[in-house]
């Protein structure tokens, strides 16, 4: 039986990413939680530019965390040549402090530069988070019941925010 993984520590992952200077924004369920949605999520999803410099920073952020590919836990991230990582569409990473999904592109919006973000103080560090309009567009493009519910919650939150 594989060793039991410790609890997901999203704050610690975010601290490592920001301290290493990784360019990224929080997307997915945690972004929805930060905007006020009540549906819990577990893993940390981020969008990031897949540039050589940024991937180097990402590897540095995950140093010492035994980062491995979720789909191939026998392969360690640090053993991957950078040239190969540059070709990935997404990185699903298992670490000693939780799961981190890094997306090059966010459907249906596009790659990192076109995303609209807001800076939010999530605790020890401010982080960029996908803004509520973009997040609703993402959740509305998905068909899983949990995504539809989050979209509905976010639409209610946006309505309240607009009303002031």
């Amino acid at each position, binding site marked *: 039986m594989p060793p039991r993984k410790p*609890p*997901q*520590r*999203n*704050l610690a992952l975010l601290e490592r990413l920001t301290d290493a200077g990784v360019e990224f924004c929080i997307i997915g369920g*945690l972004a929805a*939680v*930060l*905007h*006020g*949605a*009540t549906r*819990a*999520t*577990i893993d940390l999803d981020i969008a990031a530019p897949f540039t050589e410099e940024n991937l180097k920073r990402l590897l540095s952020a995950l140093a010492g965390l035994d980062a491995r590919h979720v789909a191939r836990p026998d392969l360690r991230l640090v053993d991957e040549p950078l040239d190969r990582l540059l070709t990935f569409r997404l990185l699903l990473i298992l670490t000693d402090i939780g799961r981190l999904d890094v997306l090059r592109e966010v459907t249906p919006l596009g790659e990192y530069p076109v995303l609209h973000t807001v800076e*939010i*103080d*999530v*605790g020890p560090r401010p982080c960029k*988070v996908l803004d509520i309009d973009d997040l609703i567009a993402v959740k509305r493009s998905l068909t899983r019941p949990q995504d*539809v*519910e989050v979209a*509905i*919650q976010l*639409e*209610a*939150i*946006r*309505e*309240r925010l607009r*009303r002031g």
Partner: protein
Amino acid sequence: VERIDPAELDFESFARLQTQFREPAWRAAAAHGVDLFLLEQNLELTPAERMQQHEELLRLMGR
């Protein structure tokens, strides 16, 4: 706003209570089964407090 005796509360009366939220998107959320009282309570938190709440939830779940 309907005032209800908590001893009389059931899921039907709870759903009826949620109709006090008048904005269209809130009504749509209620129709979808979202607990609007919980959502409203969550909106009173700062993002940092939501993050902390989420971390504690993950710890409780052992995930």
